[in-house]
C-alpha cells in the first residue's frame, strides 16, 4: 500500500460543467434555507402517511449504497488480498466520503428537530431496539473513518507542495490577513513538518481504521434494511421479510462494485485518461456472483414465505418487482460473458443496469412498496427534487475539484506524457 499509486489530475478547475453544477448547488441550498424558515411542508410533498420521501429514500438509503464503492473496494484489496486494485481505492474512498457526508447533510435537512440530534451522544437516551439508532451512530462513525482514510492524500499533498505554490499562498494570505510573510512562512513550514510527522504514524495504524471502515458499513447497510422490518403492515409482502438486513447488505456490495466501474469509466472519459480495463474486467467477474447470491435469497425467501404468487399478480407492485429483478439479472447476465467484460461499453452498460436495479430495490422497499393505507399518495415535489439534485451536484462538484487538488486518481505509469498529449483517446481500441 504505497501512496505512490496516486496522482493529482492536472487540469483547470473552472470548466463549464463546474458552473452548471454550481448553479444547481445554489438552487438546492436556497430551497434548503426555505425549508428551515417555513417548515418541511413548504418544500416537500411528504405527509403523515408518507413521512419519508426521496430525501430518505434516495439521499440516505440509496445514496449510501452508491457510496459503498469504498467499502466494496476495501474488502477486495485488504480482505480478499487483491492488492493490484489498490490504485483504484482512493477515488472510491473519496466518493464514499462525499456520499456519506451528504447523506448526513440530507438527514439534517430531513429531520424536523435537528438541534436535538445531540441526544445520540447521551447514553441515557440511547434506544438500542431502534435500527435508526444503529444506523445513525454507524454512519457518523463511518464518515469519520472515511475522513481518516482519506487523510493520507491531504498529507502527501501538503508535504509535496512545491516552493512556488507555497510562495503564492503566502502572498495571498499576506494580502488577506496582513500578517508578515515571514511569520506565515514559518507557520506553513510547521504545517508541512506536522504533515510529514503524522503521515508515517498514520500509515502504521491505518489498517485498523480501514478494517473499521469495512465493519461499520456491514453493520449499518444491513440496518438500513432492518429499518423497514417494523412496517410489517405497510410494506408489500414482496419486500417485507426478515431477510431485509441480509438483502440490503448484499445489495450494497454489488452496487458498490458496479459503481466503481461506472466511476472509473466516467472519470477516464471525462478526464481523458486511459481506461483501467484490466482492473474493471476483474471487478466485473465478481459482480454477477454477488448478484446471483442476492437473487437466490430473494426468490428462496419468497418461496419459503409462500409469496411467489404475488409476482404473477402482474399488478403495480409485481411490475416494479419484476423491473428490479430484470435490471439486476440482465446486467449480471451480460457480465457472465468474458468477452463483454473486456469491452468498456458493455462494462458500462451492465454496471449501470445493476446500479439502477439495486437502487430500484431500495426505492421499492422505502417508497414504492410502502402503502400506509387508503387515501395517502406521494410523489416528490419539484422543490424536493431540486434539493436532492442540488446535493448530488454539490457532491460531483467537490469530487471534480478535489481530484485536481489532491492525489486521488490512479497514477498513470509511464503513460503520463502520452495521456496528456493524446486528448482524444479511443477507449475501445485501448485493449482490443
Amino acid at each position: 500500500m504505497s501512496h505512490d499509486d496516486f496522482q493529482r489530475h492536472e487540469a483547470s478547475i473552472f470548466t463549464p460543467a463546474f458552473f452548471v453544477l454550481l448553479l444547481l448547488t445554489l438552487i438546492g441550498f436556497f430551497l434548503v434555507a426555505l425549508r428551515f424558515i417555513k417548515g418541511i411542508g413548504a418544500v416537500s410533498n411528504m405527509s403523515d402517511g408518507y413521512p419519508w420521501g426521496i430525501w430518505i429514500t434516495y439521499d440516505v438509503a440509496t445514496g449510501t449504497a452508491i457510496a459503498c464503492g469504498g467499502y466494496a473496494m476495501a474488502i477486495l484489496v485488504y480482505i480478499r488480498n487483491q492488492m493490484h486494485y489498490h490504485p483504484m481505492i482512493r477515488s472510491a474512498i473519496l466518493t464514499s466520503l462525499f456520499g456519506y457526508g451528504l447523506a448526513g447533510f440530507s438527514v439534517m435537512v430531513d429531520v424536523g428537530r435537528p438541534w436535538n440530534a445531540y441526544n445520540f451522544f447521551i447514553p441515557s437516551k440511547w434506544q438500542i431496539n431502534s435500527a435508526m439508532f444503529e444506523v445513525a451512530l454507524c454512519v457518523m462513525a463511518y464518515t469519520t473513518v472515511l475522513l481518516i482514510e482519506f487523510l493520507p492524500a491531504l498529507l502527501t499533498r501538503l508535504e509535496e507542495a512545491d516552493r512556488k505554490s507555497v510562495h503564492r499562498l503566502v502572498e495571498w494570505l499576506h494580502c488577506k490577513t496582513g500578517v508578515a510573510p515571514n511569520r506565515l512562512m514559518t507557520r506553513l513550514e510547521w504545517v508541512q513538518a506536522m504533515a510529514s510527522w503524522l503521515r508515517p504514524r498514520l500509515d502504521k495504524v491505518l489498517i485498523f481504521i480501514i478494517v473499521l471502515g469495512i465493519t461499520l458499513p456491514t453493520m449499518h447497510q444491513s440496518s438500513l434494511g432492518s429499518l423497514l422490518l417494523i412496517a410489517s403492515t405497510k410494506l408489500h409482502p414482496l419486500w417485507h421479510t426478515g431477510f431485509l438486513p441480509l438483502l440490503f447488505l448484499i445489495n450494497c456490495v454489488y452496487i458498490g462494485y458496479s459503481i466503481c466501474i461506472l466511476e472509473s469509466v466516467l472519470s477516464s472519459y471525462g478526464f481523458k485518461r486511459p481506461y483501467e480495463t484490466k482492473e474493471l474486467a476483474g471487478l466485473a467477474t465478481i459482480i454477477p456472483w454477488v448478484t446471483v447470491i442476492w437473487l437466490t435469497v430473494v426468490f428462496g425467501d419468497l418461496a419459503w414465505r409462500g409469496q411467489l404468487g404475488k409476482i404473477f399478480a402482474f399488478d403495480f407492485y409485481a411490475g416494479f418487482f419484476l423491473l428490479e429483478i430484470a435490471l439486476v439479472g440482465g446486467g449480471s447476465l451480460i457480465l457472465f460473458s468474458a468477452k463483454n467484460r473486456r469491452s468498456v461499453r458493455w462494462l458500462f452498460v451492465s454496471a449501470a443496469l445493476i446500479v439502477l436495479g439495486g437502487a430500484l430495490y431500495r426505492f421499492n422497499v422505502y417508497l414504492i412498496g410502502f402503502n400506509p393505507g387508503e387515501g395517502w399518495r406521494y410523489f416528490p415535489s419539484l422543490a424536493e427534487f431540486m434539493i436532492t439534485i442540488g446535493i448530488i451536484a454539490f457532491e460531483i462538484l467537490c469530487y471534480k475539484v478535489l481530484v485536481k487538488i489532491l492525489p486521488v486518481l490512479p497514477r498513470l505509469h509511464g503513460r503520463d506524457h502520452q495521456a496528456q498529449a493524446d486528448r482524444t483517446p479511443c477507449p475501445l481500441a485501448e485493449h482490443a
Partner: protein
Amino acid sequence: MAQPTRRGFLVGLAAGSVALLNSEALASAIGEVEGGQNELGMLYDASKCVGCKACMAGCKRVNGDYGSLSYERAPFDQDGLWDAPADLSGSTRTLIKLFKQSDSEWSYVKYSCMHCRKPSCVSVCPVSAMTRDPRTGIVDYSKDTCIGCRYCQVACAFNIPRFQWDSATPQIVKCDLCLHTNLAKKGITACAEVCPTGAILFGKRADLLATARARLAEQPGLYLNHIYGENEVGGTNHLYLAAMPFDRLGLPQLPGNPPAEFSEKIQHTIYKGFVAPVALYGTLCWLALRNLKKHPDGSHAGDEKGDGHES
C-alpha cells in the same frame, strides 16, 4: 356491579388512577404481578357516540398550549368560527368521524393514540423521545428529546403520530392520555370527562375490558362480537366497541403479534451482546494484517507482478 352508574364509575376510576399515579411503590408492585392489568386506557363505544365532538373541543382546550395545537380553519370560514380539522394532524390529537354505509346505516368513530402494550413507535424511536410508562401504560412523547426523524410515523400501524409539517420547529403530535394536563389535575382524560353519553370511558384496562364484555353479553344483537384492541398488535389500552365492521371505520385489520416483537427479535439476534460486530472486526483485522505481511510497504511494483492479473 353489572352496570354501575356512569358517574360512580368515573369517580371511582379517577380516584383509583390518581392513587396509582401517586403511589409508585404500590403501582410498580401490582403492575408486575398482574401483568399490566392496572394500566390506564379508554373504552370508546361507537354505538353510544352521538358525534357532538365535545371530546375534540375538550382535548384542544386542555392540551392546546402543552402540545402546541392550533385551531384548524375550514376554507369557507374566514372568521375562524369553527375548529374544523379534516383528519388527525399536527394540530389535532383526537378526531370524530362519521362513516355512512347507507342513509340508515352509519357509525361515528373516534381516532386517537391506541396506547399499544408493545408500541412500535417506542421500539423504533432512536433517542427515547417516545416512551411507555410500565406502570400506567401511557405512551408519551417528549419534544425536548425528539429529533423529528418521523420513524414513529413509519412504524405505527394505526398512522396515529402526526407531524407539524408547516412549522420551523415541528413536533410529533399524538394523544398522551392528558398525562401532563387533565390527568395530572383531575385524574381523567379531557375527552372522557366531557363526553355527555358515556361513549368514552376512562379507567384501568382490566375494568374497561370487563365493561366491554358485559356490554357484549347484554346486547349481543347491537354490537359486533369483537373488542377492538384486546388483541390487535399485542393488545392496546385504547379499546373499541362498535356495531359496524372495524375496518370500515378506519381501524385496520391487524395481526395479534406486535410488529415491534418481530423487528426487535431480528435486531437483537444480530447485535446480541455486541459479539457479532466485535468478532467481525477481529476476523477482518486478522485477515488484513496477514495479507499486508505478504505485501510489505513500498513493494508496489512487486505487487503487480507477484499478484498477476489473470487470477
